[in-house]
């Protein structure tokens, strides 16, 4: 369960205040698959960063998995993020000089969930699920865009997160690949019984989700 109450997010950009987001209420139930839409700059990424604890709201509370993360210290939030949130980005945000396997193993050192021996085994089984076990020792920079995003999907679930946040995951892929990746994300989220939040500009994908939310309509800061 994700629960945001009376959220306000104001950026301070060298003294100038930017009101990016103001929400009365937003709730997402466990296991729900929600698509977020809205024009550029309407605050979608800001919302995700609030849910993951990368940002703390200027006002209001963010409750994820019954934890009010606004009450946590920064390092507690980091640990929370490592254990509960899986991130997938438009730009993949992998380490190109690292191998596929190394990229997937990396977040495990922050979650403190696995012992050293388990890490590689677990990462390999994740790679199997996205169909990349045969490329485990290849450097990420040698992969295609679709393959990169599959590595990122594998990486997002190694720590068994309850929430998967995907910020325009198909934005850098062609139509065919994008569709495949979106299917994979939905399938993996289902298998993991994770709550899935996806930001997308592709309206044809909306029917794949339980519901879609237009942040532009919700965000009182831009009205």
């Amino acid at each position, binding site marked *: 369960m994700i629960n945001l109450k009376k959220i306000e997010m104001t950026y301070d950009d060298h003294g100038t205040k930017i009101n990016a987001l103001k929400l009365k209420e937003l709730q997402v139930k466990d296991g729900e698959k929600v698509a977020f839409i809205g024009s550029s700059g309407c605050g979608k990424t800001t919302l995700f960063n609030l849910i993951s604890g990368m940002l703390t709201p200027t006002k209001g509370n963010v409750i994820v998995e019954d934890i009010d993360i606004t009450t946590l210290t920064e390092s507690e939030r980091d640990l929370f993020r490592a254990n509960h949130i899986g991130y997938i980005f438009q730009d993949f945000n992998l*380490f190109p000089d690292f191998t596929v396997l190394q990229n997937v193993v990396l977040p495990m050192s922050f979650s403190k969930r696995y012992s050293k021996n388990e890490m590689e085994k677990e990462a390999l089984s994740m790679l199997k699920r996205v169909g990349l076990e045969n490329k485990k020792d290849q450097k990420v920079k040698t992969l295609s865009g679709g393959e990169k995003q599959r590595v990122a999907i594998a990486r997002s679930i190694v720590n068994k997160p309850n929430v998967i946040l995907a910020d325009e995951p198909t934005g850098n892929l062609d139509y065919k690949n994008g569709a495949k990746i979106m299917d994979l994300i939905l399938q993996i989220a289902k298998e993991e019984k994770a709550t899935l939040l996806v930001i997308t500009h592709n309206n044809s994908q909306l029917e794949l989700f339980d519901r879609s939310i237009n942040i532009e309509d919700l965000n009182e800061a831009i009205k």
Partner: protein
Amino acid sequence: MILQFIKTNILSKKLKNFLTIFAIMISLTLIICIQNISSQLVSNVENQTKEYDLIVGKTGSGIGLALNSIFYYGVPEGNIDINYLEKLSSNKYVKKVVPIGMGDNYRGYKIIGTTPNYFSGDLYKLADGRFIENEQEAVLGSTIAKKGNMKIGDKFKSTHGLGGATEEAEDEDEHHHHDFEYTVVGILEPTNTPNDTVLFTTIETLWHAHGLHHDEDEDHDEHEHNDEEHEEEHEHEEEVEENKVLSSHAIGGAKEEIEDSTALITALLIRAKDMSSQTMLYNELSNDNNVQVIIPNQALREFLNYIKIFTIVITLIASVSVIISIIMLFITMLTSSIEQRKDTSILRALGASRGTIFVINICQMLVLAIIGVILGCILSHVLIAIIGNYIVTNYGLYMSGLVFQKEEVFAMLITILLSLLAGIIPALMVYKTDATKYLK
């Protein structure tokens, strides 16, 4: 995995990291080399000169006499009258006087003729056998024994001339071999001094080798030195012809007549009874125009001063180079910290704390600094060994690549510390990065 991350991260930016390591390595090498070499030179000189207060030799260059009689370096100016040995032995200011003669070599290593009391004092320690007592006995420097695989009881023949390492390879037939044999009675412990590369025998043995006495044949008219093979002493040889003095000497108990009294005492090493004796002796001998007297410390002070000034200059240059390379490092780290903002943001999104990221950055810096320092240490000692080898063969001053000094460890630690300091500001910048700005 974090270590793995650091490793892969360093390896993925090979060129930049190589330059950083290279800069640290070169500046440290410079500092270590100059400090190490100069302190080895200085301690070498100081160690070797502390045994004697005065050196008497043929008039000429003071430094030349000091280098020749203390480091066995170069060709002596000539020989002095044997009367001086006798006169000084009975001088009330003198505690100990030791003659030194040279003129022969064994495979290019100088044979030093002296008296058994040369070895009193703590400069000489035996690895095996005993010190010389009788004629035709030899004590070997450790290097010679090792290279020639020689042991106590071995016999060898000497060659005329002062040798020098370069002669070693020459055709031995061209040299005049003395036809009697030396017996090895002792081998010195390695000392890292010029003593490692000379042989010692009694000074009478040298005289004997040169047919100067012991023949009981007092009418021995011309001594049969072949002038052509006597190049080093050629100049002095002419003098000898006009300058024959009959004298006696009191070494080994036997008083023997020698016709060529000026042969083969190249220097007298003197230990005075005390400070004032030293002054008295010095004044006394300074008035004698036939010889020069030097205070080894003083004679070499000029030499040492050159070394010291040289050291200071090079150390300054090296320090500037260290500072420049640290600044370079700082800039490298700064630019890479900007590049690293994105990497940092990704790590943060994956759940890494700011602390972890700070540690990763500092560790990367530390790894580069330590690699640079270790390489610098290795490179500098290889260089010292090479330079040392050159100095040994050319100047007789001993230098080893295996001498480590605490100043070096200090320089290494300082370098690592400075690198860390240079790394801290960029690492702090990364630490403060707002991760959400760089993720898309």
